[in-house]
């Protein structure tokens, strides 16, 4: 285990990073380690624990902005916002249990580092679309800020985008400002039963193309649906295609009715009300179906929505033990496969490339596999070189989470 520093203020972080850069001692950054299993395994002598850099600094519901410390628990943020009928619209997933950890331990800094997004992604964006500004410490040990604390800003480069999904390799964040939005009054879900994957994605496309403002589009093959904690879904005995509708009560009723008219031709329908809807979309969001068994490798694929079924068909043809389900109207595929030395990387990435492209992340595998197989989609050389120069522009001594994304940087 690395020796772990637990700073409680920005200048502490700056002092530590300065020291690390001077001594050439790389640091692993983490909060409560709920997603420690995600990314390449980093081995450093020292670690920087940001979990004490926590708490709300400013929240004004009518301004739609929230400023807080990165170590704040996402679950605490959601409680706070809920009291004002607001939410983090990117619907941050709670992935801890995927690696056998407890639920509700993820921090907002971790959500930023991994660019988290839930089922509402295709409509409302990922955390990249909601991070307005930050202050932090670069790998040079310099305190700086970027972005702002208002919802509309184009002053200077959009560095907040860059720290989203950077896995802590560019900046140790010390303060972040996110956009918040009103929470929907009502949620309902229209279910369509018994569709094969290709037909299901067509149904989802029809819903997404309609003007009924859907806020969730998922398809669960029969084996996955059977594991749901929602009775209507688990007991269906066939595949379940789910379309979520949110908003004011009267509007939700009207849109559900319109959607039922639209989707009636696809198959038998059912409707979930608030409690069951919330439960089902939380399962989808957190990939609950694949929490166990943990020795199976887990892949997360982002593809053009209509290409989802083609990708899974190609993979299942070579590896019949593949299990998968679709979110984002087919554009997000969660896939598990039996353990293998290369985690089936060639098969998975080959299928994605052959079906119009996208990217495949090796989301869960043992450390040795994640050290040997590129966890993130390998980039063409020009892009990889640009990414290295960018990393160097923030962290020339390579002390912030080196190797977490790409070996050597």
């Amino acid at each position, binding site marked *: 285990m690395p020796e772990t520093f637990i700073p409680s203020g920005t200048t502490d972080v700056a002092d530590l990073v300065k020291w690390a850069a001077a001594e050439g001692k790389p640091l692993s950054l983490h909060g409560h380690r709920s997603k420690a299993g995600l990314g390449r395994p980093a081995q450093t002598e020292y670690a920087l624990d940001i979990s004490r850099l926590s708490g709300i600094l400013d929240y004004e519901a009518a*301004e739609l902005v929230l400023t807080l410390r990165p170590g704040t628990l996402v679950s605490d943020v959601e409680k706070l916002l809920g009291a004002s009928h607001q939410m983090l619209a990117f619907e941050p997933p709670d992935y801890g249990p995927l690696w056998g950890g407890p639920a509700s331990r993820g921090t907002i800094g971790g959500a930023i580092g991994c660019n988290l997004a839930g089922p509402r992604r295709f409509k409302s964006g990922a955390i990249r679309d909601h991070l307005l500004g930050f202050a932090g410490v670069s790998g040079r040990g310099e305190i700086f800020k970027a972005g702002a604390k208002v919802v509309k800003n184009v002053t200077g480069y959009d560095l907040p985008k*860059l720290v989203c999904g950077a896995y802590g390799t560019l900046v140790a964040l010390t303060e972040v400002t996110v956009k918040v939005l009103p929470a929907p009054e009502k949620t309902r879900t229209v279910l369509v039963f018994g569709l094969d994957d290709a037909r299901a994605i067509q149904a989802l496309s029809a819903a997404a193309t309609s003007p009924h403002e859907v806020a969730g589009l998922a398809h669960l093959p029969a084996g996955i649906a059977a594991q749901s904690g929602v009775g209507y879904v688990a007991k269906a005995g066939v595949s379940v295609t789910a379309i979520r509708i949110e908003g004011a009560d009267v509007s939700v009723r009207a849109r559900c009715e319109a959607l039922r008219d639209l989707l009636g031709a696809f198959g038998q329908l059912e409707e979930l009300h608030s409690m069951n809807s919330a439960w089902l979309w939380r399962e989808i969001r957190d990939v609950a179906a694949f929490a166990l068994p943990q020795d199976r490798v887990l892949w997360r694929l982002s593809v053009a929505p209509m290409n989802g079924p083609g990708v899974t068909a190609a993979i299942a043809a070579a590896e019949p033990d593949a299990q998968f389900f679709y979110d984002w109207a087919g554009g997000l595929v969660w896939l598990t496969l039996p353990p293998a030395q290369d985690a089936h990387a060639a098969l998975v990435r080959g299928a994605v490339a052959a079906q119009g492209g996208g990217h495949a992340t090796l989301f869960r595998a043992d450390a040795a596999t994640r050290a040997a197989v590129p966890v993130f989609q390998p980039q063409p050389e020009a892009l990889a070189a640009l990414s290295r120069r960018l990393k160097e522009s923030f962290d020339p001594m390579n002390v912030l989470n080196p190797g977490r994304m790409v070996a050597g940087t």
Partner: protein
Amino acid sequence: MLMPAPEQDIIAQRLDLIAALRRIVPGEGVIADETSLRAFECDGLTAYRQLPLVAVLPSNVQQVSEVMKLCNARGVKIVPRGAGTSLSGGALPLADGVLLGLGKFNKVLDIDWDNRCAVVQPGVTNLGITRAVEHRGFYYAPDPSSQIACTIGGNVAENSGGVHCLKYGLTTNNILGVEMVLMNGDIVRLGGKHLDAEGYDLMGLICGSEGLLGVITEVTVRILPKPTTQRAVLAGFPTSESAGNCVARIIASGIIPGGMEMMDRPAIHAAEDFVHAGYPRDVEALLIIELDGPPAEVDDLLLRVKEIAERCGSVSLRVSQSEDERLAFWAGRKAAFPAVGRISPDYLCMDGTIPRKTLPLVLTRMGQLSEKHGLRVANVFHAGDGNLHPLILYDANNPGELERAEEFGADILRLCVEVGGVLTGEHGVGVEKRDLMPAMFSEADLAQQMRVKCAFDPNHRLNPGKVFPVLHRCAELGRMHVHKGQLAFPDLPRF
């Protein structure tokens, strides 16, 4: 406004450079005569003009790459240009720079209905995208007021917004992929038809980078189904405070309108005199609140918005009863800039964003600044997201008045920063707000942004003189003073 001193050795090689460019882009694609170059001498910030060294209009990505490679090798600067509608001087040419126009990239390449996206060349206009998809009930959401002319490539460079962006987002939230050419000629593709980047979010970084990081040669945009119903409320208020309060209460009640615009008295009068939209003249502030969605939702929201407006002291309240009436409500707002152009020979359009709650304070202080500088100001305001467009009225024929208008504008933007806001909400920094960057960013903040620039363009050849007030050499910015063995082991809690 000081631009980097032209490099005489580059100007001396002009003829040779033109010949080399003609070998890459044959025929009329290289423009070198002064009369034709006049067309490029400025963008929407017309107060600044400069003839480029030469203009080149490539017609494919290989040509763009070759032009950039050539310029990179020779150390020649490049200024990229879309339609030239920037209000901040982002496309202002350089006397020693090649102007790279993307006007010939004007095709819609692919419309993928099922995946709800379109692949377009950067010279396609913003409205052109909507025109290409509207026959099947789709549209492209960001709608800057110049949308009839501005191009999607420019929208990416500036991260353009519009009146609907509180609900539907800016350009950065509505694109899926780009192809771009780096200063060294490398062609890179970011994203595609899928969501989110793997690796660093370079597409997010490119959006709003004002042509300093790369030249966009293709864009994949998301297209959305059009809302079935759109209706608007026109509400007049006796004070800007009561109007501001109404905006805050609408949002606090959980409503995000499709658009929510505010105008102050001078803007209302100018617009009404120009287009006769039926605006009330006896109010201090006017709100246009647009609600969109399924009919049932719009009906419900209209009731709630009306009730809030009345409770906030609205003295005149109208709800659009037809599509014509809705468009009439908007006609005045959309014509606000030309309307102000009618009552003043010239105007400067500012673009700060403020926390909405500070609006009354900002308007009061702006009134004081107006007196101090002896110039009138009219305000239009994207009220939902706090983006303020003060229009400063002046006459460039009166000696010194442009300078006074600019000083007034700078004071307004410093005020925006002082109350917790920013210098620019959607128009970009360009040359216009370049020298105000230190009002918002520290030296360390700016140094890190410039280091990012260095990762893309280590010799500052791409659109230099924009955004950053002082250009530091990349070697100097990258230098790090390492004190090995001299820094104390940090005295922090650890285990």
